[in-house]
Every structure is written in C-alpha cells, then in structure tokens.
C-alpha cells in the first residue's frame, strides 16, 4: 500500500520526526544555521529584503513544475525584482491527511533543486497536517531573506519619458499551462509553465547595467495589471505596443477559444524591466544570452511622468487604456 500522510505525521511525535528526517532534511540538508528553534545567520549588508508568499496552486503537479518549484521561484523572484540578492528561505507546509508521501518527497526534492539553482538555502521549516477535505492536497508558504548590495539598488524615481519597457520572454505561459493541466475546459496543450527563479538573470543585468529604473514580476493579473501598478505607483504613463508583446501561438490560440486576454494571464518566470533608453540594447543582449531571456523584447516606452496610466497601442495605430484585471477571467461564448 502506498504510504500516505496521516494526522500523526503532524503531532510532533515520532512519525513527525521521521517525516522531517526522511523528506525535508534529506532534501534541504541540516545546515549550521538551523541548530536552534530559529535559524540564525549574518547578512553581508545593512539593508535587507524580506518577503512572504503562500502557494495554493491546483493541480499540485503541472507541466513545467510543481507547487514546490513555484514556492521557491516565486519568493526568490519577489526578492530579486526588488533589487536584492536572495539568500535564505523558510518553508511552511500545510498538508491534507492522505497526501502521498511519494508526492511530498518529489515536491521537497524539486524545491531543493530549484533552491540550489537559485543559490539560496532553505533554513527553517514547519509542517502541519489537517483533516482530509479541509484543504486541497498541500499548501506551501515560503518566506525569503535577501540583502541589497551597495550601489545595486534600482531607481524608480529616475524614470523619464522615452525609457524602455522590456520583458524577458513570452507572456501567459503559466496561466495557460495551469488551465490545461486542470483539464476543466477541455483545452489541451504541450506548453509548460514558465515557472523559474529569475535572480541569476536579474543579477546579470544589475551587475552590468546602470540605469535600471524598476523591475517587477507580472504574476497574478498578468502583464497589464503589473504595468498598471507601476504606472500608478510612480505617476507615469506607460505605453505598450500590441505588435511587440511576445506571445506564444498556443497561448494566443487558447485565449481565442475561451475569450481570454493574454495580457491578464499569470506568469511565473517573467520580469518587466524599465530601463534608460540608452541601455535598451545592452539589456536585451544580456537577457538573450541567458536561457530564461531568449525571447526578450522591448514592448513599449514611458510616455510621461504626469498621469499614472497604462495604454496599449493597437495595430491600427490607435491607443486605448488598459486597466487592472477586474475579477477573475471567465471563459465566454459571447
């Protein structure tokens, strides 16, 4: 019989101890920092970055990753796009009774692999088991700590008309990959999620380019919602060009079937850069040399610093305003 998580795995006793040893310590290691109830460490800078995020993706496994990869990459990315260098993560697991231990191991191993790739360590964790039916499989919370290197900070206040808006690749891949993996609306595609830790790519840009104004990762709400937020936060009018935005054919195809807009689909391995116009070519070159930036493209410009709004230039040459995603996207027949 397949081994499954039971309520006893969460009671702090022998089974819990064994689970932590077999699954988590085996995957994440037991490091110098982790000998006490809290992890202790020093950071190489006065200015640190802290973030937290919870992951509840359905299904837990999907083409291109699983909830564990998402939990590591997502938190690493939140630190990296803030201009900081991610160092450590914590991981909290809430697991439904009956969850397969084999699956939990696979998730932990994926997390360890992604953490190694991103050059971060998972140094504290927690496991709780809840009764069957009270959650859907497994939820993971990760918190992350990073530090800001001297002279490496981004400078959004320097944003000026003419600045370039760049994205490191095709948008909407994660949204459509998850939709297909759920199998609810009948869409089938081979497309994997773009889920990936971006700190290596971002480091390459920041270490060579002076003139990065701001970076953000367009996750839930998609490219449009994230750009609307930047526009509003920094009182800038941003314009993106419909014909320049990289979108995979199959993403566009799925959107056409269901009446979705790819500009509002989630991404998990994308970052938007706004950079000084003169640095545009240099940034593109650095991005395209990295495996996560092959399809990088300039998608638009900062128009002015007067009104906080996002506009889209259509193929006919007109512009229209883009708003935040209003509520969740629903398939439509009309």
């Amino acid at each position, binding site marked *: 019989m397949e081994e499954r998580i039971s309520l006893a795995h969460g009671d702090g006793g022998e089974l819990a101890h064994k689970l932590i040893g077999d699954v988590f310590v085996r995957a994440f290691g037991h490091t110098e920092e982790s000998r006490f109830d809290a992890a202790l460490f020093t950071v190489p800078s006065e200015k640190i970055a802290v973030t937290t995020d919870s992951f509840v993706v359905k299904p837990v496994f999907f083409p291109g990753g699983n909830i564990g990869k998402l939990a590591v990459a997502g938190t690493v990315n939140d630190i990296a796009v803030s201009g900081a260098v991610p160092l450590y993560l914590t991981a909290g697991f809430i697991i439904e009774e009956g969850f397969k231990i084999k699956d939990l191991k696979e998730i932990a191993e994926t997390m360890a692999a992604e953490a190694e790739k991103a050059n971060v360590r998972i140094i504290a964790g927690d496991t709780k088991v809840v009764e069957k039916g009270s959650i859907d499989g497994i939820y993971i919370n990760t918190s992350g700590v990073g530090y800001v290197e001297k002279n490496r900070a981004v400078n959004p206040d320097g944003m000026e008309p003419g600045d370039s808006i760049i994205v490191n690749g095709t948008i909407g891949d994660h949204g459509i990959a998850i939709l297909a993996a759920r199998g609810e609306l009948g869409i089938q595609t081979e497309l994997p999620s773009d889920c990936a830790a971006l700190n290596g790519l971002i480091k390459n840009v920041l270490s060579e380019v002076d003139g990065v104004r701001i970076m953000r990762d367009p996750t839930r709400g998609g490219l449009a919602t994230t750009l609307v937020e930047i526009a509003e936060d920094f009182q800038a009018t941003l314009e993106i060009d419909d014909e320049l935005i990289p979108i995979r054919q199959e993403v566009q195809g799925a959107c056409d079937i*269901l009446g979705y807009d790819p500009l509002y689909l989630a991404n998990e391995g994308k970052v938007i850069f706004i950079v000084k116009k003169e640095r545009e070519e240099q940034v593109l070159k650095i991005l395209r040399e990295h495996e996560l930036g092959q399809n990088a493209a300039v998608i638009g410009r900062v128009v002015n610093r007067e009104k906080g709004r996002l506009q889209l230039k259509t193929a006919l040459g007109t512009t229209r305003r883009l708003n935040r995603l209003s509520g969740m996207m629903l398939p439509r*027949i009309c």
Partner: protein
Amino acid sequence: MQEILNEFSSPQLSRKLLEKVKESAEKFIEKHGRRPAIMEVCGSHTHALAETGIKKVLKDYVNLISGPGCPVCVTEQKSIDAMIKLADGPDRIICTFGDMVRVPGTEQSLLEAKTAGKDIRIVYSPPDAVKIAEENPDKEVIFLGIGFETTIPILAVALQEALQKNIKNFSMWMTTKLVEPILRTLLDTNATKIDGFLLPGHVSIVLGKNDYQYLAEEYKIPGVIAGFEPVEMLSSIYKLINQFLDGRAEIENDYPAVVSDEGNPVAKQLIAKYFEPVDEAWRGIGIIPKSGMDIRGEFAEFNAKNRFQITVGEPRKTKCRCGEIIRGMVAPEDCPLFGKACTPLKPIGPCMVSAEGTCAAHYQYMRED
C-alpha cells in the same frame, strides 16, 4: 490556409482599408451633413470594434451604434433573477456559460451564490452539462440556456444527448433570443436612426444570407454580413457606406468563406425538432412576440421551468440605462452610473459585465480618462 486567416487581421491591409472607409464616410458626410449611422447587431462585433481601436479611430467618421446582440444584456432582470434563484434549491448543480456568472441579480449574482456555497459550474459547451448530470445522478443538473441563433442549436445538441442517453436529472432553463424579431422591433419603433446594419457573422452561419432579405425588401435598409477580424469588419463597413452613397439597399455577404445563402441545414433542423418560438421579455423593451425559443411540449421533462417552481419579486429599481443602450438610443457615457457607481468590478447592469456589453467595451477600450 493559416496564412489566409492571418491576412484577415493584417495591420497593413487594415490601415489601408481604414483610409478607404474614412474617404467614403467623408463623401457621405458632405452629402448628408451627418455621419452614416451603422448598427453593429452583434455584441462580439461591439467588443472587436472597440478592442481593435476601430470604434475610436472612426469616431468622427462613422456613428457605430451598438445593437441588441449581447444575450445577457438583453435578458430582462426578472429572468436573470429567476436563473440565479434556481441555485437556491437543494441538491442542484447549476451549469452556465462564463458570461452569466457575474451578471448582477436583484439579490445576488451567480458568483456570489457560488461563494456562499452553491454548486455553480462554468462549462465551455452545453453537452458538458449533460456529462455532469451523468456523473451526478443524485443531483438535479440545470443548464442556463442563453444565446442567439448560433448558440440555440448547440442547446438542442445538449437536449438530444440527454434524451438519447436517457438522463433524467438534466434540464435547461432557456431564455434565448432571435435576431429578426428584435431588428423588426427596433425599426418599427424608430428607436434610433439607422442607415444600415453590420450583420452578425456567426449567427449568419446558422441563418444564412437569405434570412435577412426582409431588411432590404420591407425596410429598404442595407445589411452586410461581417466577420470579426479588423480587415473583415472594415471591409464590411466600407461596403455599407458605399450602399448608402449609391442609394442601394441590399444584403451582402462579406463573410462568404463561412456563411452560405441558406445557412446550416442541420442546425435549423435541430432547432425545429426540439424548440418552438415563444414570447420573450427583453430588457427595457418588454415582451416581443415569438422572439425566443423554448423547449417543445413533447420534451417538457427537460424544461427546467416545468420542473422547478421559481418565483421572484419585482427587480430592484436602479438608474441603469441598459434598456436604452441595447436599443442604441443612448451611449454608455449618457448613463449617470457609467464608470462611477457601475464598473466591471461592481457592475449594476449587465451591459457592464458581459465582455460583449456596450458599457464594458466603452469602459475597457474607449475611456479617455
């Protein structure tokens, strides 16, 4: 073939055609002292014309009036409330197109009912609801059948499947709408000045070009059946204006790769087999005789209206002007709620919630501020 299809949305070709449309519109304006008034009957055209920027760029040249072709927008509030109320009963699964989910009811929307724990499922195709009924034999599965002639035959497919598979726990609550009666009503009541119609490409797949002859013959109003890509829509607008300039009133098929003269015979047969014309109530207009389709008497067991007793009170009164907007009498900006109390996130009328709704199209794609 894919290259041909790509050409339908070619920016270069679109830009050239756009100039042609402007030129002929200028001639019209010179002759008549006003812009030509074209009603796009179909909500998908409203959406596409706004999304591609055509509406905005032609603003000073052509008066593109949004018509009654958004199914949830034209459905009167009492029917909407009744459909939402269906979710109240025990052991029920409500299946619906995504379009209905956020439409505000007097008490709540389907989305709010779902949040409160009701089993409400979004399906892409009506036969999917039959499958859900098959998988849940101890539940009553009700499909909310909205739509015009394109969707009505698909509702017939679902009914036929339930019948063939002898599925007893499936039924449909239909509030479907037909194109001809509403166009006649608009013209008979002179709701708004219309020079010609941009006719709905996908409804026309089912109806066929010949079914629109009454417009040209009885009303002397031209119509052009149009596709949904920029090149297709611009070409059809151009053809309409040329008819105005020539003083012609003809029905032209500008979507001949997809639409035939006679329509789709299988679809017409299925509609006639399972459904019959019924009086339908339209938002802001009232009952139009024989303007919808409902399940024929011999299949009454599949009619949710027979199976479930639903009573709803009088809908809440609001300042919403959807009723006039769907007849092309006022623009969204004329409504006191537009963009203020009524937004896509908190819609008051259905025209703001449906992607096809005129208010949503104006809010998403045409607002200056």
